[in-house]
């Protein structure tokens, strides 16, 4: 079987991360779980280790993009075939990782998205328009039908891994919007798979009108930026060969 690494970015998630890791092992006994502790000030790393995960403890907070990048670099260095992002807050169901991995056979990047029929996730107002525009534009860029581009639930295959290890965006929203543009420019095939997003175990999502307007503006800016930026896509830049690491 392919070697699969589940990457769990976690920032101050001591309440949720333990259950998330245990749930991943229960659903997928053959995978390795890497929790990237993004400079937490609570006991996230200890809880994750106790649950049986490998833990990368980042000494400073790098944001979701930075944490995922660390995970991708680890995956490339240790020669994994695929890396799947599963959020620590429990909104991604580990059982559905299998659905994502199944698609990696003929695609290089698989996004688990919430469909109108599947999963209870309510969005309205500016945030909804932003997601619509993003979906339309990014569908054209990636030449595939995408209905929701802001999902973090993604499976990254062999072709995309070195690309992301080197170029994964660390800016706000970059890990969802710009990452897709980079993958498309790097010639990766992208597909989406319907999944159920669950209610988070800890923390509450923000839905105030002001916040979603700011979100709309920032998403638009991030999109324009992603589209006009030049990407000198280098896939195997300076990540050392796996043999070097194993020795």
């Amino acid at each position, binding site marked *: 079987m392919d070697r699969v690494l589940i990457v769990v970015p976690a920032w101050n998630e001591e309440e949720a991360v333990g259950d998330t890791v245990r749930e991943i092992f229960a659903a997928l006994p053959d995978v390795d779980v890497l929790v990237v502790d993004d400079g937490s000030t609570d006991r996230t790393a200890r809880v994750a280790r106790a649950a049986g995960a490998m833990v990368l403890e980042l*000494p*400073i907070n790098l944001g979701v993009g930075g944490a995922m990048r660390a995970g991708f670099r680890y995956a490339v260095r240790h020669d994994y075939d695929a890396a799947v992002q599963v959020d620590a807050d429990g909104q991604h169901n580990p059982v559905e990782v299998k659905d994502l991995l199944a698609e990696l056979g003929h695609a290089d990047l698989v996004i688990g998205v919430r469909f109108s029929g599947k999963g209870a996730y309510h969005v309205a107002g500016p945030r909804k328009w932003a997601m619509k525009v993003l979906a339309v534009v990014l569908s054209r860029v990636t030449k595939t039908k995408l209905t929701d581009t802001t999902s973090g639930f993604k499976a990254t295959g062999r072709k995309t891994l070195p690309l992301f290890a080197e170029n994964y965006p660390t800016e706000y929203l970059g890990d969802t919007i710009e990452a897709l543009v980079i993958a498309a420019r790097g010639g990766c095939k992208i597909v989406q798979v319907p999944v159920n997003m669950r209610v988070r175990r800890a923390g509450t999502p923000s839905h105030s009108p002001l916040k979603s307007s700011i979100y709309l503006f920032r998403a638009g800016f991030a999109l324009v930026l992603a589209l006009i930026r030049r990407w000198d896509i280098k896939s195997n830049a300076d990540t050392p060969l796996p043999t070097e690491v194993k020795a």
Partner: protein
Amino acid sequence: MSVATQILGIVASLVLVAGIIEMLRRRQFTEKYAVMWLVVAVIVLVLAIWPHSLVDLANLIGIAIPTNLLFFVAIVFTVGVSVHQSWELSRLESETRKLAEDLAILRLEIEEKLKDKADN
């Protein structure tokens, strides 16, 4: 103001806008700085195209000499930028310190591990 000076102003501000966009494209700055400089570039461009807007604005606020408004805004902005940069620099310093500390700890831990291995 003659047409020639106005064209000079417009050309100069277009060069500024183009330069900022090109640096953005080459990923020479991150999003937060990009937004700030784009706003500055657009304001400069607007003033170059409609110089009279500066006079109107100065009259509205009650500043007799319009250029003084421009200088005032520019100085406030420059001070703001340098305060912000000091803040960023301090943050970077503390991050570097943390990285150095972690590196030193790792080095010790690896040395101890190697020693253990040699002893056994």
